[in-house]
């Protein structure tokens, strides 16, 4: 039926439109039921078969597919960060504008790159380095060395797989604090040679690095092709001067032209030789906080071609493996007719793991990964699972709907703009509480001294001792008024399906 024909009768009252739901419900398998069958076929614990204790962030089987080192790129907006990342990774980073107008959100741009080194030990630095995008080419054919003296015949070996995280302003801090999504192992500070230095934003960035205790900084003087040589030298001195006494003091300064691909090999050399290999916990039971969840099916896909829901996030500790049985908590959250909250974990199987386009057999802490599961795809649609926690059944934190929090209120709102004292908590008032990367509203039930009993709008998967942030609606924004630590709470048991509703 074509749209023109359809616009005759059925549409008059807007009835009969958009009927996807009913049909989909018919198509959708009863996930929990079909899954039981699938689950039984699986090995009890695939972890036992593979010795993860020997893995590290440079293991070839890991870095051929997944980035294990995160490098933040910071610098003034027009200084060529994305050109640099493109020169290294071949990926044009798309950074979506903040919905600055009507919304408060954040987005980070990502691109991954592999760094190769010539197998010939005699091949001189930095000529022996080369980089390319993250995707796996043909498994056994690493690129050839570009060194013209060797007639481009030498094979190269993969030595690093890095993830570049575009950090405009302080978002890097937010991301680190809130999502644990991007723990930076090093940073590029990009300064354009054709600009006055330092730009105010550059100074802020340095201060931000300072606070994060980030030491592995490489300063890149970009766009050197646009200025005369003595100007480059002058700016170099200025950089030395303004980084004096900061965490970037003594950091290598490299003159590059990202546009002309000039000195990129020097940058690669520095990544390999100056940025230490991070220490990651591969041995614990895996834990990942979900930052994205999607449904990747075509509308109206038949039951046989239906793909399960996909969740994305960064593994905080441990490793996830294909075929592993996982639990997502709290998972399915509903309110019954009486207004009672119910939750039921999603037990599912990992059918695929990927980092960018690469399929993984095993995913480790590092950059963001996607996890394809067997769960009902509609469960993940539209980011419904953001903030939920992925782990292994039997080793998950508890789920709470009420928490007792030991809280501390700020004396006044942060910043001089909001020069306002923070008044005490009031019974019954609505606050926003951030627990991990989950935000929930809560009603304050009772306050006694430093202890507040909070009732949450959504169940959260967390642990006693975790930090929470408290915000109150002031001057039309949610403003931070204090923080606290979880003292206690009564874990809520999952809802059993056979109970009458």
């Amino acid at each position: 039926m074509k749209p023109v024909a359809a616009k005759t009768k059925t549409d008059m009252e807007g009835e009969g439109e958009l009927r996807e739901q009913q049909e989909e419900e018919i198509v959708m398998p009863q996930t929990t039921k079909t899954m039981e069958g699938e689950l039984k076929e699986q090995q009890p614990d695939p972890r036992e078969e593979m010795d993860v204790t020997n893995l590290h962030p440079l293991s070839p089987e890991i870095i051929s597919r997944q980035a294990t080192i995160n490098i933040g790129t910071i610098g003034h907006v027009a200084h060529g960060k994305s050109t640099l990342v493109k020169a290294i990774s071949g990926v044009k980073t798309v950074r979506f504008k903040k919905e600055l107008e009507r919304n408060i959100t954040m987005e980070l741009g990502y691109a991954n790159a592999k760094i190769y080194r010539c197998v010939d030990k005699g091949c001189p630095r930095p000529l022996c380095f080369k980089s390319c995008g993250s995707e796996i080419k043909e498994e056994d054919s690493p690129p050839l060395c570009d060194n013209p003296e060797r007639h481009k015949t030498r094979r190269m070996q993969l030595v690093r797989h890095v993830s570049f995280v575009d950090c405009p302003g302080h978002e890097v801090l937010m991301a680190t604090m809130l999502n644990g999504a991007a723990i930076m192992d090093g940073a590029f500070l990009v300064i354009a040679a054709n600009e006055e230095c330092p730009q105010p934003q550059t100074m802020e960035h340095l201060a931000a690095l300072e606070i994060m205790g980030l030491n592995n900084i490489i300063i890149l003087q970009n766009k050197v092709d646009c200025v005369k040589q003595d100007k480059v030298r002058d700016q170099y001195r200025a950089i030395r001067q303004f980084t004096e006494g900061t965490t970037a003091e003594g950091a290598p300064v490299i003159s590059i032209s990202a546009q002309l691909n000039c000195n990129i090999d020097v940058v690669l050399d520095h990544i390999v030789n100056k940025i230490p290999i991070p220490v990651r916990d591969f041995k614990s039971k895996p834990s990942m906080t979900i930052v994205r969840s999607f449904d990747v099916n075509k509308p109206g896909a038949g039951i046989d071609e239906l793909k399960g829901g996909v969740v994305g996030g960064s593994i905080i500790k441990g490793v996830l493996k294909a075929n592993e049985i996982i639990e997502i908590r709290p998972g399915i959250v509903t309110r019954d007719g009486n207004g009672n909250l119910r939750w039921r974990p999603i037990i599912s199987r990992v059918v695929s793991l990927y980092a960018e386009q690469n399929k993984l057999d095993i995913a480790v802490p590092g950059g963001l990964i996607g996890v394809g599961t067997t769960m009902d795809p509609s469960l993940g649609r539209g980011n419904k699972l953001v903030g939920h926690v992925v782990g292994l059944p039997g080793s998950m934190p508890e789920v709470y709907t009420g928490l007792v929090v030991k809280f501390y209120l700020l004396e006044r709102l942060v910043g001089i703009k909001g020069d306002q004292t923070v008044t005490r908590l009031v019974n019954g008032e609505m606050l926003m509480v951030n627990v991990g990367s989950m935000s929930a509203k809560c009603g304050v039930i009772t306050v006694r001294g430093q202890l507040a009993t909070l009732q949450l709008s959504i169940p959260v998967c967390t642990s006693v001792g975790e930090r929470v942030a408290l915000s109150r609606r002031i001057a039309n924004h949610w403003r931070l008024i204090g923080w606290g630590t979880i003292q206690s709470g009564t874990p809520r048991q999952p809802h059993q399906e056979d109970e009458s509703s």
Partner: protein
Amino acid sequence: MKEEEVNRCQIQEWYPKFKSVSIRTLIHELPESFVQYLLDDSGPFVLPVSISNEDALPNRIHNPEEEEDYQVSEGSGDEAEPSLPPSFPELELKVKESIEALGGAVFPKLNWSAPKDSAWISTSGTLRCATFSEIALLFRSSDSLIHDLCHPYDSCSDKTMSRPPTFFLALRKWYPSLRPEMEFRCFVRGQQLVGVSQREVTTFYPILCEKKNDLEVLIEEFFNDNVRLKFESEDYTFDVYVAKDERVKVLDFNPWGAFTLPLLFTWEELEQKPREGVELDFRIVDSQCAVRPGLKTAVPYDYLDTSAGSGWDQFLRNADEELQRQTRSSEAGA
């Protein structure tokens, strides 16, 4: 941009004309007292008292142990009494009737905006509302709506008012399974459709690559048949949803430029398109991109505000000073 162009994009203005090609919507004028409730934060944030006893917060599960340990002795003077919560019985009744008429659940919206940024606050994590109380909660928690309430005409060259004289609550029928990838923003310049962009731009949807050509035809036809001659502005944007049966529905109108997100375009690019004889530029995310963090996490405004005088600004200044102090003292010590 002119005030009248902004005004045309209000749902109570455009919906009556596009009713047959939109999703079912019932619109109520809001009493000024409710508007004031949304804006007022002199006291603590409490929900209106519901006349039908509906609560947006799930029931509390009572636990005797907790009660014993943490229940306060009333009147210990350690807590402030909440001020008397407001009540909007008439509006609540009307809303209740409309929700029932629309099948039990709605997507609420003010003149221009929906409270998208407060989806985190609802139990379902969506904008689905079944009660007046839930609507009040979403609206009162949203920064997006502050734009409608206080700044709708800020980018108008002929700005005379700070807000429209009346506000409306639009209740739109809730469709639980709308697919984010089938929503598109259409850019109209000089009454010509010059650009179409995927609305949800953070994900790659293979289906869009396959269907791009079909979608382009459908949307262009829809524009020519249903929008071009009916919407009076020269330059504007509108959002459409393409259903599985290939029918197109208009979801929203927005002004050209300023606050409207250009998605996969930039406003500079769009501005440069010639006013006539231009080919439609249809943009989608065309390859698998890396997983990006989502937008769902709400954070205190203070975490994001870095402007002069903000908490971050102050913090960074302090850090700078501290650093300089330490540098000086270590130099002195050396």
